[in-house]
């Protein structure tokens, strides 16, 4: 059987908070740093989204549709495209029109709702699904949770929401001797198929590509296709942030040339490209996987410690999700939107205090100087939000 390569790119932009001081609580309910959000989005649109979309469109045309990819675009990112860079949305629509691009479903706000409140999780999944249908005219059938967070419990919820396929991390502590390069089923829900990220090969592109002290540098498409071919399973899942292309790995590193050459190199070695939905149609599962404790694709630990590892994160998390029931009975679109944006996992990520090695990565993506500042600012915003919520509740 032909080996398949499954490419999935995550597109997400957080709704960064402005500096929100104690003095603002109860007085000012605009929480977002619109300037930073616009500036960053416009920069990444120029450096990554627009050129890379163009490149992928060309690859699909050139290979007559043999090249395929999947995207998951968070609702937060879609909102920012709509507001600051509608041309990016247009270019994603052109990709959608080829029929060779699968759009996955996730929580609209790129949130941790799957760990907190089933009702809120369901609400956000359905909101995202509707939004994708609206934007691209396709109905997502594959689910990927925020940061590939996955557990047996989440698998059951996802299946109950109508999905037959889910993406997650091929975490070493879960896989043991097993290879991520096959299709698995969820132990808690045997009808749910799992596609597992091959983190070694994914990170060769996402993290190591431009690292000149890496002994495989420079990485060429031919060499990489050779590695893909050597993998002994049915499918190699290359999952990464879309911002890898042009943002994390700069244009000067040759990342675009690499991606331009990759489709032909893969096809030349007799492999093919699949989207997640096709993969589960073509390939039979080999075993089931049991994941009692949640895993993710983040950091060395591949667990939740990037978002809920310290007491700051846990308290902030508990405080916001305690509001879920209250908000369910308040019909206020503005409150709902703020509630969603405040749930974005990035806010919790900024509070991470794992200072060594992985902490560096956190710091690089954080608008704050320290995790403590991130926490203080978030809690000030949340305190204002709680006041508004309580007020709205009293009005009912």
């Amino acid at each position, binding site marked *: 059987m032909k080996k398949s390569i499954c490419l999935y790119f995550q597109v997400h932009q957080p709704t960064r908070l402005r500096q929100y001081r104690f*003095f603002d609580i109860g007085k000012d309910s605009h929480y977002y740093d619109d300037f930073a959000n616009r500036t960053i989005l416009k920069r990444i649109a120029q450096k990554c989204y627009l050129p890379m979309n163009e490149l992928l469109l060309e690859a699909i045309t050139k290979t007559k549709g043999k090249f395929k990819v999947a995207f998951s675009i968070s609702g937060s990112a879609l909102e920012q495209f709509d507001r600051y860079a509608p041309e990016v949305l247009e270019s994603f629509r052109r990709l959608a029109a080829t029929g060779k691009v699968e759009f996955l479903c996730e929580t609209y706000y790129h949130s941790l709702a799957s760990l907190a409140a089933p009702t809120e999780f369901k609400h956000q999944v359905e909101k995202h699904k509707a939004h994708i249908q609206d934007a691209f005219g396709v109905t997502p059938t594959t689910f990927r949770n925020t940061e590939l967070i996955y557990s047996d419990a989440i698998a059951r919820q996802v299946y109950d929401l109508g999905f037959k396929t889910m993406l997650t991390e091929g975490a070493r502590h879960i896989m043991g001797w097993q290879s991520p390069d096959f299709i698995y089923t969820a132990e808690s829900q045997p009808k749910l198929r799992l596609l597992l990220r091959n983190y070694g090969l994914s990170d060769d592109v996402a993290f190591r590509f431009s690292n000149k002290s890496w002994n495989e540098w420079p990485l060429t498409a031919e060499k990489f296709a050779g590695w893909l071919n050597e993998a002994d399973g049915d499918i190699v899942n290359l999952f990464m942030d879309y911002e890898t292309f042009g943002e994390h790995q700069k244009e000067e590193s040759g990342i675009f040339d690499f991606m331009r050459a990759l489709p032909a190199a893969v096809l030349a070695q007799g492999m093919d490209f699949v989207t997640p939905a096709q993969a589960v149609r073509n390939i039979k599962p080999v075993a089931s996987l049991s994941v009692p404790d949640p895993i993710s694709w983040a950091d060395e630990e591949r667990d939740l410690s990037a978002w809920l590892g*310290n*007491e700051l994160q846990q*308290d*902030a998390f508990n405080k916001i999700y305690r509001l879920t029931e209250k908000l369910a009975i308040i019909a206020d679109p503005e409150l709902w939107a703020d509630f969603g944006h405040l749930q974005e996992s990035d806010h919790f990520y900024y509070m991470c205090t794992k200072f060594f090695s992985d902490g560096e990565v956190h710091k690089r993506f954080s608008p704050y100087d320290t995790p403590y500042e991130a926490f203080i600012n978030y809690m000030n915003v949340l305190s*204002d939000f709680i006041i508004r919520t309580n007020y709205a509740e009293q009005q009912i």
Partner: protein
Amino acid sequence: MRVLMFGWEFPPHIAGGLGTACEGIVKGLAHNGVETLFVMPNASGDEDQSATTIINASDVEVRNVSTTVEEFINKVKFLYVDSNIVPYVDPDEYYEAIEKMKAQSLTETSVGFGQKFKFSGKYGSNLMEEVSRYAQVGGTIAMQHVDEFDIIHAHDWLTYLAGIAAKELTGKPLVVHVHATSYDRGDEKHIDTRVLDIETRGMMAADRVVTVSDLTRNIVINKYGIDPSKVVTVHNAVDFSGREDITVERGVKDKVVTFLGRITFQKGPEYFIDAAAKVLKRTKNVRFVMAGSGDMMNRAIRQVARLGISDRFHFTGFLRGADVQKMFALSDVYIMPSVSEPFGISPLEAMRSGVPSIISHQSGAAEVLKYALKVDFWDVDALADDIFALVSYPALTEFASKQGYDEVNELKWNGATAKLKKVYESLI
């Protein structure tokens, strides 16, 4: 009577409270008929000189320094400065200064006969060098003005060496003013021995040691071994003239309980947090604010999160200027749970804004504030009780607010400096 006074800073350019206190003192002394020549390392020229004459040490050429003075100056030259050794300075300011100083290279600049030394007058990493240079220049100034003063008065350890030099060269009596001691700056294991040495030397050489509270007086006597008969307490006062009352619109309906100051061991932040958690178990209509920064801030944030009260306990970071007044105006209760506080001017500021205050018995301010509520810093239950009472019983709140306001308005430098004048008189 005329006094040659050595200070480190003077409003408007101040990093801490030492300059403010010095201004209050020279104005109070002027009111009591005492003239002052105020020496400072780096004057800007825009200081208010209505009550004193300011001498800028940076403008003075060094000359006629006796060998005995040089000898002790040499001993303290070029020492690295550790944090927390300066009174009333916020750590943010301190670290800013340190970072700036690090950027410059520290080369030994020898100042010889006929040269001027340009002081920064800040609290940077070459502070020790400045302190010893200041002594050198201080001696010169004392000689130049030898006929213009009867008494030498030096404020805090930064200026003690200058005071000693002036005394050695002129033979006039020396008063040193203790605003803080090394024992208030952290636990005893981490005391900077070079600062301790200068403090001890200054107190030993002084004819009178003035302390800002009896608490500090006891430390001076017991820890520094100074003869009790020459140690006199003159409590700090506060000058509210020219202060405009500000009104701010409140964003939150809840009562606000505030801690404002450095978040360091000495200020007792953890007792405030523990008390907050206890109060929140009984009533929800209250918020807590910790305003300031310091080396215990991150620990404090974690403590708040661990107790699960971070939606009711807020941090503002370091506040400057008008934001401090704004914070007081937004507060219903002010807390100063200091473990060790020579005086502590902030509850006076709070009470002046009509905010009832709870302060620890371990603060100098507790000796003068009858209408502040007082607890031992470690007695978290008592602190929680008092907070609860002040946010729950309006009769108590109004009483403490009204009486406290009147009380702090009576704490004037005119009275404090009248006592200081008596100290001077006993030496001539």
